[in-house]
């Protein structure tokens, strides 16, 4: 590691408070617009690769594969916070297509639509068809469950899934698990996985080697970020207990329309920005929901630096890249430290 990189990491460490989240930095940074998250696996150890232009030349160097996460497209939303969510989703896809290093697939972590309408799903499909990555994996958000408790979502995106739409697949030695925590929600509660899905998950993971990298993806965060706004999953503890024995676990979520990260032992959690509109940081507004930002901020990118610690030697580093950003940097190492940041543009 170069001195410069070490300095940057040290600086980031100083910014942390006890729980590993730099709230001051976070609150400063309400990055609007969409994000693409690119992961690359190098020799079985995931490393970050920059999504933005500047780092394209490094992409793919020794990497086995990469994939992109998009989230919360909310096709059908048309309020002041963003009156053309289709255009911003298109921009995210254009950005994916412009990457010098082609991702193997895309994962959409839910809230595909605003109201689960067929026309909204149609529009989404049309835009996604333009993606260079032809394989797209989905999990539903609560907005996708509004037609007959998610029946329409299942018909269109749930082939081969179980229950309310959960499933798993393997890709080049990494085990991916798509979870649904937006069905059968109970009054006063947060996200919920439910008994049947938890039993399936336990069974799905049984017998797998602990050195298998695991990636869980679900709409609502799998760790408790802000219960007052329902930002968490009531029964995620049980799910996380099943993955505890694995050497490298990453949870990718959406729902909150902003970047949050946390490391707990060998589990690294990350939430993505939305491609539709931002939401306020926890407790900074009377409620969650669409956050309108001035037009010039839509173009400008606000930067945030989050540092994830992993006790084990494996680390999954993530690079978030706002749509309008000209430069975003990210770095990762296989040595237990991952840094992801996007600079102010």
């Amino acid at each position, binding site marked *: 590691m170069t001195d410069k990189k070490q300095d940057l990491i040290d600086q980031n460490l100083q910014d942390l408070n006890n729980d590993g989240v730099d709230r001051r930095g976070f609150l400063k940074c309400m990055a609007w617009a969409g994000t693409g998250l690119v992961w690359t696996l190098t020799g079985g150890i995931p490393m970050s690769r920059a999504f933005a232009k500047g780092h394209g030349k490094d992409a793919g160097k020794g990497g086995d594969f990469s994939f992109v996460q998009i989230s919360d497209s909310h096709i059908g939303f048309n*309020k*002041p*916070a963003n009156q053309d969510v289709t255009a911003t989703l298109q921009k995210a896809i254009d950005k994916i297509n412009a990457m010098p290093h082609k991702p193997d697939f895309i994962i959409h972590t839910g809230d595909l639509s*605003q*109201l*689960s309408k067929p026309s909204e799903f149609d529009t989404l499909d049309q835009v996604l068809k333009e993606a260079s990555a032809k394989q797209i994996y989905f999990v539903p958000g*609560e*907005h996708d*469950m*509004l037609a007959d408790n998610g029946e329409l979502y299942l018909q269109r995106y749930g082939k081969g899934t179980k229950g309310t739409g959960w499933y798993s697949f393997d890709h080049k030695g990494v085990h991916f698990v798509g979870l649904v925590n937006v069905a059968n*929600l*109970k*009054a*006063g*509660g*947060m996200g919920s996985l439910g008994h049947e899905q938890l039993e399936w998950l336990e069974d799905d993971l049984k017998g797998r080697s602990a050195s298998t990298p695991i990636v869980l993806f679900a709409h609502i965060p799998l760790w408790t970020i802000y*219960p*007052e*706004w*329902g930002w968490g999953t009531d029964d995620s503890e049980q799910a996380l207990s099943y993955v505890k024995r694995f050497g490298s676990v990453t949870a990718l979520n959406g729902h909150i329309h902003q970047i949050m990260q946390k490391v707990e032992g060998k589990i690294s959690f990350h939430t993505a920005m939305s491609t539709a509109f931002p939401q306020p940081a926890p407790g900074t507004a*009377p*409620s*969650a*929901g*669409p956050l309108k930002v001035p037009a010039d901020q839509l173009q400008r990118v606000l930067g945030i630096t989050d540092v994830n610690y992993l006790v084990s030697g494996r680390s999954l580093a993530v690079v978030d890249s706002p749509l309008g950003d000209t430069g975003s940097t990210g770095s990762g190492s296989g040595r237990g430290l991952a840094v992801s940041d996007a600079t102010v543009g």
Partner: protein
Amino acid sequence: MTKKHVWVAGVVTPVVIAIVLLLAGSPSVSANDQPSAANAEVKIDNFSFGPETLKVSVGTTVTWINRDDIPHTVVSTDGVFKSKVRDTDEQFSYTFTKAGTYPYFCSVHPKMTGKVVVQ
């Protein structure tokens, strides 16, 4: 008109008129004195129901109006009523014909809860 007749007309008539007016204007007998309205309203905004607890009398039709910029639903926790998803400015109504306490929530954002107390 004779004097007698004048007397009848002068006294009986106004008395009869008064009695008729009295009967016409008397308030209907009410079994209870709870705040009662045939219609009541709950406003949905900022991920909350307002008022969170609404007291109404039996027979009241409650209308939930979504003033939020996000769609919500109104779902009774006991399966008594359930709205379709309501986007901004859409509404859902339910008439409460039985006394009781009716807790409900938004099935999309389950932290949003409220209750209707019917007396």
